[in-house]
């Protein structure tokens, strides 16, 4: 008896294995690359956008919460962009444009904004969008019980009042240049659903994760934790029904998995594919890549609490000693642009009429000599008062380009007699080490993603040293003053002029060596139409996208 059972075991095992094999071969006929939109819909005129199709978007980040007043990560805000809309949005040059507002008037003193709302906008549940929703949304961060992290965007806002069903008035307590482009761009939440929820409980309400309702182009369908978030076209979207039927925001653990899945056709659209992999991705069939300058910059920051970097000449000398062109061309395969100021060339506020520190080893050496650094013991490393010019350059683990750059910096700085030792630290530990109140680093390589509205206050103003993001301890009273004044300027041209001076000072002082602006790459189906590149928004005007059959 037992005996027969055992041999059965083996036989059934072989059978199972062979079932697996045949079934697998049978499956090759199924070509996943055809999947986007290939659901046998009737042919339409080639002239206009064709309706239909499902797009699978890959992301290495997982979303957390779909409420713009509480979310702090990119994946969540990607999905919020599908579901919600704001009064104001921005175009490809980051100028503010009207979205759900029909008109916004600013008072003479710049302290009152009156917004007229578009009529006939519908929430996903059919209710009409009115001034109540706007008042409700903007009152949340002003409520003392509010416990999200977005309060600072509404700091200047004093009072928001409903004038009539389609008019809202915002009263500010002080002038704030960013109120119109930033605060008014926050997505609006539905008052008719959330009005009875106490503000203290709003951040943890089910609405945020299980049933978000917005006025945006896509309706929330479901969120499978760790797998995907699915949304479907909203028929009554006020800018017109999206052409795509559904979007599936698929979560993948890392970039390797993402690339394999793009190749296998399991993912159709992906942002954030690194430049080093882009040539590989371009060779996949049925895939195209759109590239452009990203709205960010990467820098080498100096801890100015450290005696080594207090002297501006030393910082300038190091910038002279760094061959940034070589970094862009060799480390990044030419996939970027050398930076001179902390603002993107894409922005309307960009101005590079500043002092530039070209690659010049001799000049670097003479600047260092002026600062009192010389190689007195002949070991190839500069010294001063018995101290060697030696420091560590930290960067975060996981960013291949930055990891390479710290090694290249070590080589390049050796040329001028500076020893720069690379150190790569895991992200969370890295942030704790470098930021307040530890400032435990000498120099670091890091990047900033820029806001659509240019404002350097949070990063370079001396008031932000003790606990803010000025963790390099840069201080220039003159620049401080200019940055404070700029906050009061509501006119875009005036603002740009003010910032031209600020950039001049920042470039002269070199609190960072501005290294480069990286390119960003977006992988998409070869038949995707209607896509427009926007450096800040991977899914710019996604309701216009369509798949050509």
């Amino acid at each position, binding site marked *: 008896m*037992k*005996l027969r059972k*055992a*041999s059965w*075991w*083996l036989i059934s*095992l072989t059978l199972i294995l062979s079932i697996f094999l045949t*079934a*697998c071969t049978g499956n*090759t006929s199924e*070509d996943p690359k055809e*999947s986007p939109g290939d659901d046998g819909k009737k042919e339409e005129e080639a002239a206009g956008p064709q309706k239909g199709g*499902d797009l*699978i978007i890959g992301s290495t980040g*997982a979303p*957390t*919460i779909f409420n713009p007043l509480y979310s*702090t990560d990119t994946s969540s805000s990607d999905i919020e962009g599908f579901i919600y809309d704001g009064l104001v949005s921005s175009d490809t040059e980051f100028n503010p444009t009207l979205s759900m507002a029909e008109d916004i008037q600013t008072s003479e003193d710049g302290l009152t904004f009156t917004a007229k709302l578009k009529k006939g906008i519908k929430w996903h549940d059919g209710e009409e969008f009115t001034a109540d929703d706007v008042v409700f949304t903007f009152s949340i961060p002003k409520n003392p019980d509010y*416990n*999200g*992290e*977005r*309060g*600072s*965007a509404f700091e200047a806002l004093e009072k928001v009042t409903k004038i009539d069903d389609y008019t809202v008035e915002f009263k500010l307590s002080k002038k704030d240049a960013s109120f119109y482009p930033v605060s008014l761009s926050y997505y609006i939440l539905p008052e008719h659903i959330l009005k009875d929820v106490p503000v203290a409980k709003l*951040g*943890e*309400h089910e609405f*945020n*994760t299980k049933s978000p309702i917005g006025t945006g182009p896509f309706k929330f369908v479901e969120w*499978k*934790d*760790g*797998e995907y978030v699915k949304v479907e076209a909203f028929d009554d979207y006020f800018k017109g029904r999206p052409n795509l039927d*559904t979007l*599936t925001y*698929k*979560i*993948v*653990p*890392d970039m*390797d*998995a993402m690339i*394999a*899945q793009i190749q*296998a056709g*399991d993912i159709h659209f992906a942002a954030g594919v690194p430049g080093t992999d882009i040539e590989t991705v371009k060779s996949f069939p049925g895939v195209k890549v759109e590239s452009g300058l990203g709205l960010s910059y990467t820098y080498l920051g100096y801890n100015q609490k450290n005696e080594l970097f207090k002297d501006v000449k030393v910082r300038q000398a190091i910038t002279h000693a760094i061959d940034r062109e070589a970094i862009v061309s060799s480390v990044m395969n030419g996939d970027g642009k050398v930076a001179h100021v902390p603002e993107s060339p894409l922005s309307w506020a960009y101005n590079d009429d500043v002092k530039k520190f070209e690659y010049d080893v001799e000049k670097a050496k003479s600047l260092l000599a002026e600062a009192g650094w010389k190689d007195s013991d002949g070991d190839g490393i500069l010294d001063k008062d018995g101290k060697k010019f030696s420091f560590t350059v930290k960067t975060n683990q996981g960013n291949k380009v930055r990891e390479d750059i710290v090694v290249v910096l070590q080589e390049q700085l050796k040329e001028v007699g500076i020893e720069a030792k690379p150190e790569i630290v*895991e*992200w*969370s530990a890295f*942030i*704790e*080490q470098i930021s307040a109140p530890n400032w435990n680093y000498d120099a670091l390589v890091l990047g*900033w993603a820029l*806001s659509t509205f240019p*404002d350097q206050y*949070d990063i370079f103003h001396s008031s932000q040293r003790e*606990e*803010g*993001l000025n963790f390099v301890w840069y201080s220039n009273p003159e620049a401080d003053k200019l940055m404070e004044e700029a906050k009061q300027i509501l006119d875009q041209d005036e603002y740009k002029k003010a910032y031209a001076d600020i950039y001049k000072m920042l470039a002269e002082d070199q609190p960072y060596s501005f290294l480069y602006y990286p390119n960003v790459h977006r992988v998409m189906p070869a038949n995707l139409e209607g896509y427009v590149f926007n450096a800040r928004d991977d899914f710019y005007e996604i309701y216009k996208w369509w798949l050509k059959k």
Partner: protein
Amino acid sequence: MLSYIIRRILMAIPLLLGITVVSFAIMKLAPGDPASLLMDPTISPADKARFMERYGLNDPIHIQYFKWLGAMLQGDFGTSLIRKGVPVIEMIMNRMPNTILLMVVSTFLALLISIPFGVISATRPYSKLDYSVTVTSFLGVATPNFFLGLIMIMIFAVQLNWFPTGGVATLNAPFSLWDRIHHLMMPAFVLAAADMAGLTRYTRSSMLEVIKQDYIRTARAKGFKENKVIYKHGLRNGLIPVITIFGLMIPSFIGGAVIVEKIFTWPGIGLLFVDSAFQRDYPVIMGLTVISAVFVVIGNLIADILYAIFDPRIEY
């Protein structure tokens, strides 16, 4: 037997407590905190500070531990710091079925393949078959599962398109059992591979030992068929050390699941573990630690019970 099981469970309690103390300490000693994800000029330092305060992250570590322990003993694992307000238990329960499915299937796969192959190579020692099983299992032991997983994805998913690259089911498709099985095959195989190889080796050497025993000769002398001798008299005794090894392998299944889930985008607790660790989502990390520790304790208990079943000499 029952009193033994109860005794073992009672003994597990201090062990689990010890595990929570050590894990909590290690987790807190790691530099960084969940607020490090809020590195954003649009978030003010005051907001960050309030975040830390609100979740009691500024309290001394022992206070934090006892707060956590107190709540946990009442069945409350807290809420995620990153996924605001979502109960940890809900996050884990969402993922648990996937991990259990993967573990159970790969465990069966490992046993189903390794024991017969181990027995076959023991009954025909130094034959060609034995050598090929030996070489294959050494290869299996020597290949780390992340490497095997990546290679299999490259070949079978990307190049040949036989299998999906990852996930539990095809997106935008109605539920189908075959689709689920199809997605399960590669990850289950990869997770099973290393242990499969080890188990084959253990079965082989243990069987070789048993076959030389007197009682096997006696059984043969009684005129039993060779298969009956091997499988009834031999295997039952030969499996005893294998069960010990198997019990010890259960933690490695959980550890392996972390890697395999990441490679195959398998939304189980392993993947959740990795993400939570990087985000410093302390309540989730602790919840997962407790649950995996319970798994390991139960796994070892089952191994001990199986002992008694397979070896009549053992009584509890």
